[in-house]
Structure formats: structure tokens, C-alpha cells
């Protein structure tokens, strides 16, 4: 019912990740001056690229929500931004580790990518508090989409401003002057990027399926046990698709749901 194709996506992601790690450790050559630590590049850079693209995708989904009033777009936007935030933290941590290893400091303000990454993280970290502070689910979805559209446009602008402000020392792995990556490294990098994209898509698909299943379960319980037996709905940062009686989950598309579905996992994050 929900999560169609999850198994195929899981298997593809598992295979791609395994292939990536095998290639990174046994095939990709050691970097001439950075040595083994350079291999974090195959995690850090794909994660960073996927994060930034995901924020823009989240903004596009939010714009679609504003345009079509279809609440499923809000759910997708929420999930994409949620997973992108987690990837953002991973990107910041791996970036800090790489900075410590190659420049000797945990944080380097001269690196525009790292700096703009931090600023983008600080902005998107307010997405969930903003959602949580609005109770009406319909308004929550609308306001969150407005925020997501603005923040999505902010990502490239911020990057331009920060890049212009810093004298770059970031390893320009794709640098045009010195000829860029060796072919072997480039090849492994492409595999790593594909694996990271698959991982991102898989996590999003799982979260969407989990939320929809939870709402479906709630609707079924209400129908089976009666309205009083199911705990009342609490405030949540997560979007709600369920109707006032908890039913109509699968049809939840265009209809506006007056009440939120309880979702402790979303509220905690």
C-alpha cells in the first residue's frame, strides 16, 4: 500500500554504498599530499552536494504546495528538509574532520563552502521550531512553505556572498587550473555521489511511508475502537494528512485537515 518500491530502492542503495566503500578503500589511489585522510572526500563532498540540492528541491516542493494546495507536497517538502538537515550535520562534521586533518584546525573561516554550510544550517534549523509554534495544521503547512521557498532561494545567494567574501583555501578538487581529479578518483567520486543520492531518496521514502502508515493505523484504530479509545492529537512540527476523524488518509491530497495527526517522532526532532 505505502512504500511501493522500497525494497528495490533499499537493495540498490545497499549495493551502491557497498560498491562505494569497496572502491574508496581498495581502488581509489592515495592522494599525493593528503594521504589517507583525503578519502573522507568521498563522503563529505557528495553529502554536501546532496544537502544543498535537497534544500532547493524542498523549496520547489513547497512552491508546488502553495500552488496546488495539495498537502502531500507539504509532507514531501517537510521530509526532504528534515533529511537534508541530518545530511547537513554530517557534512559539517566530516568537513570539520577534514579541516583538522589537512589544515590543523577544526574550523576554518577561509573555507567558503564550510562557512556557507554553517549559515544554511542555522537558517534551516529554524524550520522545525517555526512549524512547531503554529498550531493550526493548515496554516502551519502554508507558513512553512513560505519559509521553505525563501530559504531555498537563500541557499545560492548565500553561497555567492560567502564565496566572494573569503580568500579560498578550500581544496578545489574540481579546480580547473590544475586539471582536476585523476580519472580514477573522478570515477569513484561519481559512484559515491550516486550512492549518496540513493541513500537520501531511500531515507525520504522511508520517512514518508512511516508517516502515512502511522496515520493509516490511527484511522483504523479509530474505526475499530471508536473515537474515544484513541489518544487525542497533540501539537506537532510534522505535517498532518489525516482528517478530523483520523480517516481519509490515502485521500488526504487536496482536502485541508483541520486537526493534526499525533506524531511524537516529528515533534521531538
Amino acid at each position, binding site marked *: 500500500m505505502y512504500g511501493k518500491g522500497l525494497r528495490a530502492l533499499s537493495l540498490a542503495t545497499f549495493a551502491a554504498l557497498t560498491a562505494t566503500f569497496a572502491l574508496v578503500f581498495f581502488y581509489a589511489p592515495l592522494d599525493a599530499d593528503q594521504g589517507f585522510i583525503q578519502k573522507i572526500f568521498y563522503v563529505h563532498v557528495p553529502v554536501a552536494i546532496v544537502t544543498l540540492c535537497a534544500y532547493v528541491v524542498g523549496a520547489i516542493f513547497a512552491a508546488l504546495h502553495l500552488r496546488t494546495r495539495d498537502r502531500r507536497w507539504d509532507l514531501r517538502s517537510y521530509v526532504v528538509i528534515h533529511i537534508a538537515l541530518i545530511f547537513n550535520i554530517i557534512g559539517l562534521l566530516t568537513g570539520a574532520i577534514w579541516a583538522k586533518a589537512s589544515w590543523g584546525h577544526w574550523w576554518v573561516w577561509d573555507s567558503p563552502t564550510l562557512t556557507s554550510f554553517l549559515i544554511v544550517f542555522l537558517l534551516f534549523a*529554524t524550520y522545525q521550531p517555526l512549524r512547531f509554534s503554529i498550531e493550526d495544521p493548515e496554516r502551519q503547512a*502554508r*507558513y512553512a512553505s513560505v519559509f521553505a521557498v525563501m530559504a531555498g532561494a537563500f541557499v545560492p545567494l548565500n553561497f555567492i556572498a560567502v564565496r566572494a567574501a573569503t580568500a579560498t583555501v578550500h581544496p578545489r578538487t574540481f579546480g580547473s587550473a590544475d586539471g582536476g581529479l585523476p580519472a580514477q578518483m573522478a570515477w569513484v567520486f561519481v559512484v559515491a555521489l550516486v550512492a549518496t543520492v540513493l541513500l537520501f531518496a531511500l531515507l525520504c521514502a522511508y520517512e514518508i511511508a512511516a508517516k502515512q502508515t502511522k496515520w493509516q493505523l490511527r484511522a483504523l484504530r479509530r474505526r475499530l475502537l471508536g473515537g474515544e479509545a484513541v489518544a487525542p492529537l497533540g501539537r506537532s512540527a510534522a505535517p498532518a494528512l489525516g482528517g478530523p476523524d483520523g480517516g481519509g488518509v490515502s485521500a488526504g491530497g487536496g482536502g485541508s485537515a483541520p486537526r493534526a495527526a499525533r506524531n511524537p517522532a516529528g515533534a521531538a526532532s
Partner: protein
Amino acid sequence: MSEAPQTEPRTDAAPRGASDPPVPPAGRAHATARPMRPSMALLRKDLLLERRTPEAVPAMLLFSVTTFVLFHFGLGRDEVSGQLAAGVLMVTLLFAAILGINRLFVSEQEEGGFDGVLLAPIDRTALFVAKAAALFLFLTLVEVVTVSAFAILLLGPSPWPALPGLAVVLALLNLALAVVGTLVSALAIRTRARDLIVPIVALPMLVPALIAAARAAAPLLAARGAGALPTKWLAVLALYDLVFGLLAYAVFDFLLED
């Protein structure tokens, strides 16, 4: 995004005190529909409110001067110049603007101004234009005093040669603050924690504007005398204004639907 054609120039959102001109005959109104008129009426109302019960502007002024005193002790310096001076000035203005952004829609929310705008047959973005213009004017007013205070209290080199360039930078910065501030204010006004939401959303979103403004103003305030205005940073600031201005104009409607 705007669905309501502005054929009806009359707005009911203006208070009784505002000197509203008499409503023109309907036929004439259709012939000479002026799209900016509702915005002007709303702006006049805001300026009148601030003139009769000054609230945001005096608070922003006091806050900025206090911040200069804090910077004096925090940095342990009698005078600053160059990048440091630009940073101190711009950060102070940014934080002062947050105070104004917090207050921008409070009267609309508490006294039913939103309902007035929604009931009036005008485009909702008229409210955005009016509020952004009001914030722009408040900030300009604050800066006239704040920059003078900054020149007297903290700035090392003479402020006069820097003044024309600084005016350009501050005008572009004010535009950024007005556009983003109005949107964030409208976003936060109906949340449960609006005083928390405004700074945590607005500050990161204004980082690019701050970078550009501080870098653009730095050579103007240099200790050796005012240098040339860096056009690169003015361009970044103008790009920021343009992108967020258009975006905010496009999405503001969705914040005023209920």
C-alpha cells in the same frame, strides 16, 4: 499571485485620524485606478501611528546607542576604523532592526488591522508594500541619528568623506532589512513564540546582506581616509534586494489567508 484587480481605491484600514481624501465617483475610479493608493493609505496610517505614539523608532535608537557603549567596553577601544568600524555599525543596525521587525505587525494583529485589509477590496500585497516602506523609513530615521552617534562616540577617521558612499550602502541595506524583515514579521506574528521566531529566522537570512554591507562600508571608514566604494559588494547587496524583494512580493499573499 495577485487576484484582486485594484479598481476600488478606497481602503478601510486607514484610521479615522488619517486625512483621507473623499472617495472619487465610481466611474472615475475605474478609469484612473491607481495601484499604489492602498499602499500609500496604509503607509500613512503607520507613520501617523508612530508619530502619535512613538514606539519602535525610539526603542531602536536607544538600543543602538547602548550597543555602541557596549562595543566600546567589549572591544576595549576608544575608536574604531576600517572593517572593524563597518562591522560594529552594521551589526548594531541589524540588531536594532530586529526590534522594529518584532513590532511591525503587532498593531495589525492586536487591533484587527489584518481583518481590515482582508475585508477591503484591495490587493493583499498592498500591505506588504506599505509595511516594507514603513520599516524602510523607520530605519532611515534611526540611521540618521545612529550614524551621527557612531561618528562621535566610536569612529576614528572623519565621517564626512565617507558619507555619500555610506548613504548608498545603508539605503541598500535598509531595503534588504525592510523586505526580509516584513516577510519574517508577518511569518512570525501569528505563531506562539513570535519574539523567538523573528531573530532566529531573520538573522541567518540576513547574513549575506550583512556580509555585503560590512565589506562595502569597510574601505569608506578606513583610517587612512575614505577609499573607493567597492562595486562588487554593492552588486551583491543589490542582487540580494532584488531576489528577496521579488520573492517576498510573490509569497506574501499566502501569509494573509485567514
